């Protein structure tokens, strides 16, 4: 018989066990399962690589070319594009598998003491925040390692202060300083927007499917599940694309 209680909604992922002092939540279990599945997929797909490509090879090469051409146009140089391509491509592959993870048949039903064992990894808020923080901090560290003074000078713009000759120049200087501080706030906004986009889409999609399935269990959830699949694919493309744009923007602003 179906349950008649409203499904409990929890934003934080439930903690399952403890392992040497580290709390293992269902988000961690799901992420590691996706990693194992990805590795198996890579090993199996790699055996069939040949000069006459199979279907999987065609698909993977198509996506590889998509990201590579985007990186070339963003970075401008082939060396920089090849340096960052593995990270961006692995982000895409992980999200591709992770966003569709709960569509597999019995995955959402496993429970341990009433807590779900598996959930879509992106519904744990820690994953999107960790990835966005990593990308933004990496872009700043790279820019600082290339040319620290120029990078900091882009945020704290003191050169207009030194050029004050008339009274109207003071207004210019204050405006430039204010815009520099707004840019600093913009960096925090990048972290929040990147993570909130991924988390909000995946979490809200799952929530909607759960609630609709509770209300009408038969044919009505199908469009919502399709929406989830489509949205998961799109956001698997958009997160790496936007992070490579942020990287390229920051690095190219300090390059000459």
């Amino acid at each position: 018989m179906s349950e008649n209680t409203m499904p409990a909604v929890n934003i934080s992922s439930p903690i399952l066990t403890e392992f040497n002092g580290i709390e293992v939540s269902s988000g961690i279990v799901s992420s590691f399962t996706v990693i194992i599945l990805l590795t198996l997929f890579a090993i199996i797909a790699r055996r069939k690589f040949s000069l006459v490509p199979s279907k999987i090879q065609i698909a993977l090469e198509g996506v590889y070319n998509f990201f590579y051409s985007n990186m070339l146009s963003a970075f401008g140089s082939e060396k920089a594009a090849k340096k960052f391509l593995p990270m961006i491509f692995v982000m895409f592959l992980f999200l591709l598998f992770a966003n569709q993870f709960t569509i597999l048949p019995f995955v959402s039903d496993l429970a341990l003491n009433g807590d779900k064992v598996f959930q879509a990894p992106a519904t744990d808020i820690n994953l999107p925040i960790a990835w966005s923080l990593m990308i933004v901090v990496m872009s700043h560290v790279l820019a600082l390692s290339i040319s620290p003074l120029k990078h900091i000078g882009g945020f704290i713009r003191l050169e207009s202060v030194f050029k004050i000759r008339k009274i109207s120049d003071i207004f210019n200087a204050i405006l430039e300083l204010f815009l520099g501080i707004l840019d600093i706030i913009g960096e925090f906004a990048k972290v929040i927007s990147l993570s909130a986009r991924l988390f909000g889409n995946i979490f809200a999609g799952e929530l909607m499917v759960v609630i609709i399935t509770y209300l009408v269990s038969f044919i009505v959830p199908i469009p919502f599940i399709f929406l989830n699949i489509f949205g998961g694919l799109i956001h698997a493309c958009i997160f790496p694309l936007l992070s490579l744009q942020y990287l390229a923007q920051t690095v190219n602003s300090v390059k000459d």
Partner: protein
Amino acid sequence: MEIEAAKALAAGIAIGLGAIGPAIGEGLIASKALETMGRNPEVKDDLFSKMIVAMAICESTAIYALVVAILVLFT
């Protein structure tokens, strides 16, 4: 006013007002894209994928409103 009533009201207003802007924006994106596809049918495939990317980025503010509504309602 009880806290539950305030939470429900806040969630409703948050997502209600937050979904107006992106809807208009996405309609504008789609209209420009379709107009260009009609005028120049050979860029159809290229333009379609870029349109989808632009729509997903335009959707972001609606998603922020949704996250705020969920946070208010469930914590």
